């Protein structure tokens, strides 16, 4: 009876709220404490009053816990940063070694105490190094999942479900229209096109961290063993993935040699999407512009972006993954952030989960 349970829970909370206000008994009955004392949203990001730290803050803070290396979550300028070693490495690659005053590597699955709050990092399946952060105090556990996905990804550890009282979920693709197809079919689509248009080059737009390496790795898994050309912005990250055991096969920079006439006909070139509308793209013969993103599910998005071959490939959960994850974790409460919160909250209402939007600002819900 999840529905009844949630109604009951809400009423109980409301009653304790009143009790708390009237008798100022906050903290005395620890079991019944509201989760907001453990984590709550502030303009700088998710903040823990109990532990005095932020998760993925959007402004420079004293102490930050970082879920993964995408630039809207991992910003430079915090004094102390705690994240997985891979996320710390990625931040150093992007911002330089002085990106934070102090860093601390979080080991997956190992508890660290911070002002009486127990902290645990668990794989999130989003990109290399990505983690969910579980915070726990007085029997109350909240999991901030950051960005995550459930679909298989050969370039990072898979999402690990963690039982919790409050689950904080992203909502980037939280509409029933978003259902990501099998990544193998999408790669087959790309390879078929390469075969059909041997005189053209295929430019695959993919975000530099995570998506680009996943596309390359998936092409290798599909049996494509020719050299893949990459934009300069990808080089450092691809090298880093290699050191972490993600084999990407033969890569070469998509640059022009001074003396020899370059010929990119028939090749696959991977680069950040923004580069393809730039003058950089002119070196390629009659390119087929492809974009690897969950947004490509919507035809109009592809059309507006001038994308000729959409590749529906996402590092975020689709609708089914989101709802299945909530069903599987069965948390007391669901907090929904960055994306289409209203649809997921509606689904939670219909299915008996207490849910509310967090209204965190500063995360690009467009990035995928």
């Amino acid at each position: 009876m999840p529905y009844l349970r949630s109604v009951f829970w809400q009423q109980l909370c409301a009653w304790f709220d009143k009790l708390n206000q009237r008798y100022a008994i906050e903290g005395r009955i620890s079991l019944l404490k509201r989760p907001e004392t453990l984590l709550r949203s502030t303009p700088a990001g998710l903040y823990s009053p109990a532990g005095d730290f932020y998760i993925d803050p959007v402004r420079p803070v004293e102490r930050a816990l970082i879920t993964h290396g995408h630039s809207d979550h991992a910003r430079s300028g915090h004094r102390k940063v705690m994240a997985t070693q891979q996320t710390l490495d990625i931040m150093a690659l992007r911002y330089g070694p002085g990106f934070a005053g102090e860093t601390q590597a979080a080991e997956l699955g190992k508890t660290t105490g911070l002002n009486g709050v127990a902290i645990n990092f668990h794989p999130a399946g989003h990109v290399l190094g990505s983690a969910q952060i579980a915070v726990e105090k007085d029997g109350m556990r909240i999991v901030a999942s950051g960005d995550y996905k459930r679909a298989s990804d050969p370039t990072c550890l898979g999402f690990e479900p963690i039982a919790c009282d409050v689950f904080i979920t992203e909502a980037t693709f939280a509409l029933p229209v978003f259902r990501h197809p099998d990544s193998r079919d999408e790669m087959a689509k790309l390879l078929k096109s390469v075969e059909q248009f041997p005189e053209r080059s295929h430019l695959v737009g993919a975000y530099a961290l995570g998506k680009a390496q996943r596309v390359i790795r998936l092409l290798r898994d599909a049996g494509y063993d020719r050299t893949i050309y990459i934009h300069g912005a990808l080089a450092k990250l691809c090298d880093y993935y290699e050191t972490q055991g993600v084999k990407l096969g033969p890569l070469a920079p998509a640059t022009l040699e001074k003396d020899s006439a370059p010929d990119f006909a028939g090749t696959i070139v991977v680069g950040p999407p923004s580069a393809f509308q730039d003058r950089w793209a002119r070196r390629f013969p009659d390119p087929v512009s492809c974009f690897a993103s969950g947004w490509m599910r919507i035809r109009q998005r592809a059309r507006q972006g001038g994308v000729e071959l959409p590749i529906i490939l996402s590092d975020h959960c689709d609708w089914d993954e989101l709802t299945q994850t909530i069903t599987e974790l069965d948390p007391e409460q669901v907090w929904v952030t960055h994306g289409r919160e209203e649809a997921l909250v509606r689904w939670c209402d219909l299915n008996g989960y207490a849910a509310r939007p967090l209204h965190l600002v500063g995360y690009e819900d467009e990035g995928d």
Partner: protein
Amino acid sequence: MEEFAALLDRLVLTPSRNGKLTLLADYFRDTPDPDRGLALAAITGDLNIANVKPAMLRTLIAERMDEQLFAYSYDYVGDLAETISLVWSADEPLRSNSVPTLGDVVTALERASRSDAVRMVEKWLDQLDASARYALLKLVTGGMRIGVSARLAKQALAQFGQVDVTEIEELWHGLTPPYQPLFAWLEKSAEKPESLSAAPFRPVMLSTPLEEPDYSRIKAEEYVAEWKWDGIRVQLTSERGQRRIYSRTGDDISHAFPDIADYMTFEGTLDGELLVARSGDKEMEIGAFGDLQQRLNRKTVSARQLESHPAFVRLYDLLVDGGDDIRTLPFAQRRTRLEAFAKQLEPTRFDLSPLITYDHFDDLVELRKTPPHPIIEGLMLKQRSSTYVPGRPKGPWFKWKRDPFIIDAVLVYAQRGHGKRSSYYSDYTFAVWTGPETEPHLVPVGKAYFGFTDEELKQLDAFVRNNTTERFGPVRSVRAEPQHGLVLEVAFEGLNRSKRHKSGVAMRFPRISRLRWDKPPIEADRLETLEAMLRDAQAIE
């Protein structure tokens, strides 16, 4: 069904013509009968199946999902068929069951009533994947908009079978979906099908532009001269009671011009220019191309339009006289036969395009400069000995168009191009000055995306990037001030009044003829110049 869906998905997003041709030809090669023929018919609009109304689809989805969640989804996607195709979910076992082919779907729908069709669609939606669901819904709602004309589809068939497209055009109207004999012939596994229908299309003879080196060839005893009328080229054919009006690419446009078809009481095939009349101050007069557009691209035509914009045909040539195919006779003889043939025709619907007498080439130069009617585009020069052959051979027929109109306008917006040009700002909106002389402002008058060289495109692109004042998605507005900006010399073929444009005028076939880096924007033309051109055009009428 899934291959067809994949084809549609790619066609919609492929901007280049060659890309579309490759996709279509590959599909025809890889897909068995009857699916490939049915796909072809779906694309050319020749498929006749039960229609499902959007309201019925809404009812279907309402039975399956929360209304609010559907509303959020539809709001985001904006297209009903696409939304339903994406949100539809079925249990896995259903989907792994047999997947219907395009042939299964079309065969069932041909026999179905509308209400049966809805139930079938529901069953198929459970069996298909998202992309195929979308194709199915577009098919049954009749809203297949994929940017492929019938002409392009025929071109793809020609590429697939390595035959000339005129051969396909000639056969086309005798064939019906799924076109098995056609595919068999294109694959060289059967003889060319005979054109069975009465009144088939006969591929049209076209002309090449007359250029300087060929001026000396034009002599009165060799070439006859005619005006080139600015309507649409048509072929009228009437055989054994079957009457058809074809466009020059072989599309059957009879339904749009019943006022012509009704008077096609002859037996034979005529070539001419379709024009419309409109009521002038005192009597009916020939309408401009804008008037003709009132009658084009319509499924049906209203009685009011038949009265306000009646159509007629100015005759150029006779291809079949009674049962006698005279295409192999020289033009001069065909013309004589045409003049005799025209006598039996209804004079308000058919008249002869007059021949122009001249002695020397210099006379033509003068005539070209001062045509007697604004709807004349220039001159046609036809060799007296020319037989009527399909295509565009160089020599027998020349067209010599009037010089284009020219104005100087100011670049105001630029939009990123597609395909090869997606990294360039290659579509340019230009404006002219209006308002008081002391306080002029710019009003856009048109858009052009060709006419410049690749080198000029680079310069234009750099100018746009360095002078951007605002961005709206793929569009940038560009600095355009009296003393700072870029003047474009724009050439165009004609001018119409337009209620859709703020300036009140619309150009035909505008292109950029020169970049005037030397000219300050304030010296560009004013709207009054265009308005005067419009008045001049009407004064001749």
